[in-house]
């Protein structure tokens, strides 16, 4: 067997293994019942930190969504950190405060220091027993906080972060529609990861933290590209729990264009890589249970898989396409002689690479099942046109993401300066 085939089969095997593992977690989860030890009237004091930097387009909607939360007003504190905005953000914040004087709203105006520093500045002013962070381009559903607090009340006491179910807000453009599918699947995967204590991100939009523990852990890393991931790693390293609260819907504005998506994923992937390196000691470390053995391996392997995916894509798709084009050039683009075979269908099953096709088709079936379950889990329905977006999602989107990952690895290898 050729070396390339061995690599390909290994990738199929590992991918299939992880996919099946999550299906096993899903089936096991269905057998278990939900926690029921809900404390009555559990309404602890909550602070919501909203870091904002030039968010004039969305800050008002974000603030109003927080002010509409179904939660006792006297138990709610809002800390807005205006991180050196140069647009109309400051004025919009003031006007919202003026019309909602019944709320405890604290505004911190500071020079631009980055999101991690803004969150820490907010954390210093937090008075709530729990606090949530909410990106200024995201909006929270009115009953989300109640659900998350109830979840805290019903679940084990060693949970320090509860994550929401993050969805794309009103996806209209092509890239947003694709990301909407991605987010729905991510909710389901996060649910499974939550079951085996493998969550490694506390999403910026409305993760709910135990204030005392996070302060004890030193707050957010101010020099990190993905501080919401870093804090999750740190929590895991300290053997504390992160759980996802089902149906705690938070909506975020997803990138509209490819260039916006590229910038976002560039930051996420780089942050992911740096954090994986920062916490490399957890990799395959039994002391961290499934997180060390499974999740850290997946996090590292994702980068390796991205590089191999893109290499195989070039080798098996782009190069043959270029070769075919060159062959057309060689025959002077005279395709007439070849047209006689155009309607000849090769029905010889023996001519196909059955082993690969079998494994790939099984993986595809599992993925389709995963999408179906994810939509059911998120209580969302796929519209007729949404089905069309599944095609680019399944066959193109991950190749593009892999391409971005490869570019990032190359940037890091060849020493491109990183802006923090």
């Amino acid at each position, binding site marked *: 067997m050729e070396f390339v085939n061995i690599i390909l089969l290994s990738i199929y095997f590992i991918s299939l293994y992880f996919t099946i593992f999550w299906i096993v977690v899903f089936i096991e989860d269905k057998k278990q019942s939900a926690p029921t030890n809900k404390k009555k009237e559990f309404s602890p004091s909550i602070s919501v930190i909203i870091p904002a930097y030039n968010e004039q387009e969305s800050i008002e909607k974000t603030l109003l969504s927080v002010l509409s939360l179904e939660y006792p007003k006297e138990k709610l504190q809002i800390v807005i950190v205006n991180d050196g905005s140069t647009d109309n953000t400051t004025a919009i914040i003031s006007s919202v405060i003026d019309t909602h004087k019944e709320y405890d709203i604290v505004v911190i105006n500071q020079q631009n220091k980055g999101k991690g520093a803004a969150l820490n500045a907010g954390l210093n002013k937090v008075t709530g027993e729990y606090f949530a962070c909410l990106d200024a381009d995201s909006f929270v559903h009115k009953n989300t906080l109640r659900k998350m607090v109830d979840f805290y009340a019903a679940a084990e006491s060693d949970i320090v972060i509860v994550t929401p179910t993050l969805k794309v807000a009103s996806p209209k453009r092509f890239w947003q529609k694709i990301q909407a599918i991605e987010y729905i699947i991510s909710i389901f995967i996060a649910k499974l990861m939550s079951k085996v204590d493998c969550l490694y991100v506390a999403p910026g939009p409305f993760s709910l933290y135990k204030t005392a523990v996070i302060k004890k852990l030193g707050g957010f890393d101010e020099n990190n590209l993905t501080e919401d991931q870093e804090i999750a790693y740190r929590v895991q390293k300290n053997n504390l729990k992160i759980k996802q609260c089902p149906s705690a819907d938070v909506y975020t504005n997803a990138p509209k264009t490819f260039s916006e998506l590229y910038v976002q994923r560039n930051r996420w992937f780089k942050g992911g890589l740096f954090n994986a390196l920062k916490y490399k000691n957890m990799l395959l470390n039994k002391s961290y249970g499934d997180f*060390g053995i499974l999740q850290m391996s997946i996090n590292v392997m994702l980068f390796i898989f991205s590089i191999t995916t893109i290499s195989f894509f070039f080798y098996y798709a782009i190069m043959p396409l270029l070769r075919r084009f060159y062959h057309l050039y060689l025959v002077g683009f*005279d395709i007439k002689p*070849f047209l006689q075979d155009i309607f000849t269908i090769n029905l010889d099953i023996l001519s*196909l690479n059955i082993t690969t096709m079998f494994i790939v088709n099984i993986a595809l079936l599992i993925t389709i099942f995963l999408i179906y379950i994810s939509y059911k889990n998120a209580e969302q329905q796929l519209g007729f046109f949404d089905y069309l977006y599944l095609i680019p999602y399944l066959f193109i989107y991950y190749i593009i993401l892999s391409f971005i990952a490869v570019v990032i690895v190359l940037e890091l290898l060849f020493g491109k300066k990183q802006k923090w």
Partner: protein
Amino acid sequence: MERKISKEKYILAALLTLLIFSLGLTLGILLDSVRLQKSEKLSKQQEVDYGSLQLQYLYLTTFSENEDSCSVLKVALDKSIKDLSVSLEKFDQYKHNSNFNKDEFNMVARRYILDNIKYWLFAQKSQQKCAIDLVTVLYFYSENDCSICPDQGVLLTYYKKIYGERLLIFPINADHEENEAMITVLKSKYNITQYPTVIIGNKKYESVVKKQQLGSIICNNFINKDTCYNIGESEVDQSEELDAKKEVNDSEVNKSG
């Protein structure tokens, strides 16, 4: 919190993955042996076809007064060579998708090379005997050491699609030279040192022969040039000059052979 390792889940996932993988591999191995069986069957069929052709040729040479025999021979030759190229194409696909029986497939590949050489010789002999208006191309290529060989392959296929049974192409995969002395014999006869190389009308053309030039070489080898495909006179002349630079003439070939 006390960390847990979900051993049972890991083991169950591993078993299920192995099961799916084994099913895929078993199916692959099973189909591979079916492919091999079918390839061998096709190859045997070629042998029988060749035996039949040889017999017809013997009949023709024994009873040369029978004028219809040439046309019968031509039809049989056309059909056999068409069958050979179809089964060779099929075999190439099988071999390409085979992961398990490489040695056995290589053996069948050698048989196909021998078949091609046999048919090439037979086609030349029949051409002389019956003055059949066809062009034979002996095409030497390598899958391992020749990145430009597929380019020549495409150009030959292009003209094969145009001329059909009037153009007979006999591909020889030189990678099997180590095990197949006949390839060495032919290489030495035509002094072949690089791939791709085509032998058309006993003349050697090295490297990729471009579309226009290949078209004119093929055309010039037909008895009836009126049926040539879209080659202008000037192009033919130009190609002739190029021919002169590239080709090795018969005497040189014979000397080296």
